[in-house]
C-alpha cells in the first residue's frame, strides 16, 4: 500500500468518499459528496500538506444531469497531485465557495459562473463578467450550448460587401467624364 492509499483509508473514516482512482505515484483522484467537499479540502490543505490550489474546473456530464467539479491540489512535500471531484446537479447549479481558503479561488469561481452557470454564493465578484463582457446567452461551456446556432442567430445574415466589376466601377465612379469618351 503506498502513501496515498494509506491516506485514503484515513480520510474514509472521516468522510463518505465514494471513489478513488490512483493514477500514478504523482496523481490520484478522489470522489467526495458535494456537502463534504469544502470540509475535505480544508482537511487535506491544513493537515495533509496539499497547500497549492493548482486549478479548479468543471466537466459538464449532460447525460447524467450533473457538473463534475475538479479541485486539483498539490503537496510540495510528497510531490503529489490530488484531484478532488464532486458532482453537483446541472439544474440550479450551486456550490460552496473556497475563496476563504485561497484568494485566487474567487477567480476560478467567477469563470465557472460565467462559462458553466455554476453559482458560488458569497464569492467576491462572482457575478461580474470575466472573459465574456456583455454576454447574455446560455453559459457557453455547457454541452447543450450550440455554437453554430448561436453564431448564425447572432451574426448572420450579414449583408457583406458588394462586388463590382472593376472596369465598370472605375468607369462610373473614378473617371466619369473620361468614361463618356471610352
Amino acid at each position, binding site marked *: 500500500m503506498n502513501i496515498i492509499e494509506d491516506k485514503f483509508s484515513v480520510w474514509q473514516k472521516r468522510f463518505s468518499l465514494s471513489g478513488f482512482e490512483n493514477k500514478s505515484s504523482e496523481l490520484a483522484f478522489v470522489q467526495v459528496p458535494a456537502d463534504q467537499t469544502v470540509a475535505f479540502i480544508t482537511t487535506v490543505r491544513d493537515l495533509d500538506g496539499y497547500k497549492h490550489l493548482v486549478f479548479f474546473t468543471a466537466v459538464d456530464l449532460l447525460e447524467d444531469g450533473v457538473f463534475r467539479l475538479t479541485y486539483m491540489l498539490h503537496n510540495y512535500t510528497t510531490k503529489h497531485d490530488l*484531484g478532488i471531484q464532486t458532482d453537483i446537479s446541472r439544474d440550479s447549479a450551486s456550490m460552496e465557495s473556497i475563496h476563504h481558503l485561497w484568494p485566487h479561488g474567487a477567480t476560478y469561481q467567477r469563470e465557472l459562473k460565467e462559462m458553466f452557470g455554476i453559482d458560488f454564493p458569497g464569492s467576491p465578484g462572482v457575478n461580474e463578467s470575466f472573459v465574456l463582457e456583455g454576454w447574455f446567452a446560455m453559459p457557453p461551456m455547457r454541452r447543450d450550448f450550440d455554437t453554430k446556432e448561436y453564431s448564425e442567430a447572432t451574426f448572420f445574415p450579414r449583408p457583406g460587401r458588394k462586388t463590382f466589376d472593376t472596369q465598370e466601377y472605375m468607369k462610373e465612379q473614378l473617371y466619369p467624364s473620361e468614361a463618356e469618351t471610352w
Partner: protein
Amino acid sequence: MVDAKKQDPRSKFPPVEGGKSRYNLTSGKYMKIWQGPQHPGITGNMSLELTVCGDEVVDCKTHVGYLHRGFEKLMERRKYIQCFPLVCRICVPEPDFNEYLFAECVEELAGIQIPERAKWLRALTLEMARLTSFLMWIGGQAGSFGMGTIGQWTVTMRDYMLDLFEELSGGRIYHMYIIPGGVRADLPEGYEGRVESTLKQIEKVLKDVELALMHNYVFKKRAKGLGIITPDMVDEYGITGPNARGSGVKRDIRKDNPYLIYDQLDFEIVTETGSDAYARTWVRMKEMYQSIDLIRQMMKKMPKEGPFFQKLPNVLHWKVPAGQTYHKSECTRGEYGFYMVSDGTELPRRVYVRGPSYTHAVTLMERLAVNTNIADTAGLMVSLHTYPPEIER
C-alpha cells in the same frame, strides 16, 4: 474593513461601504486610468483598471477577455489530431508546452509509449522554447523601465532561435513539432553546430544585458522593493515558477516531478531571496544561462540515432479510451498543465488548460499593484511575466 464614518479624511484610501471601496471620482482626489489592453511588455492583451490618488495606485482591477478564442470549447468538437493546430496557439511565445502536454495526456490515456529519442527531442524543443520566451520577456522588462535598446538586442537573438525552430519544424512561431507518438522529424544535418553557434551569440548578448540592465542604477533603484512577494504568499496565491523562486522558494517541476529526460540532466534550481521585481529578473537571467547549459547537455547526451516516432492507429477514427489525467511542466512562467477527460469517443470530452498567468495576472497583480507608483505599474506587470492568452483560453 474601515468604517466610512470613522476613517481619517486625509487617508489616501477611500471608505469601504458594503465590502466595496467607494471612490468619489468627482472629488478630484481619485482618477481612473486604464493601462492596456495593448502593452509591449506582455504578449497578448490585458488591461489594468487603475484608481490612482496622486501618482499612487490605490486600487487595481485586471480585465481580460480581449483574446478569448474559445480553445477549450473548440477542442470538444474536434478529433484529437485536429486539436494540434489549436493547442499551440494558446501561448504564442512558448507554444511547445501546449503541444507536449496535450500529446502527453493523449498518450497516457491511449497507452502509447514513445521512443527514447523522441523524449530527448521533446525536451530539447521545450528548453529552446524557454530560452526563446525569456529573450522576448527581457525586452519587455527592460523597456518598461525605459531601456528599449535591450529589447532590440534580445529580440534579435530570439529571431536566431526562431531560425532554428524553422529549420527543425518548418514553422517559426507555431511549430506543431511534438505530436502524439513522438515528434514529427529528426534533427537536420549539422543542426548541432548551428545550435551551438546561436547559443554562443546569445551568451555574449546576455553578458551585455547583464551589464546594461542588472547593474544599471535606474533599474536597480526602481525594481528593488517593487512588487514584494513574501514566501508565505506563494501557497496562498498559487504562485509558481520564477515568481516563487525569486522569493527563495525552491520549487521547479523539472526537478521536483521530473518529466521526459530531465532526471538525466545536471542542474540546480535557481533562487533569489530579494522577493521583488529585481530578484525575479535575476532568476530569469540565470535561468537563461541554465537553459543554454541544458541545451548543450542534451545535445551531448542525446542518443544519436533511433526511432523518434511511434506508429499510431488511424488518427481520423481514433477512439481514445475513457479516463482522465493531468500533466504538467515547468514553462518560463511556472506550472503549465493540461487536464484531459476522455469519454471513449473520437473527441475529447474536456480539455482544461492551466496557465500560470491565471493567478499571477489577476489576484496577485491586483494585490501587488496597490501602493505602487503609477510609473512602476508596467514594470511590475512585466515582472510577473504574464501571457493573457493562457488566462482566457
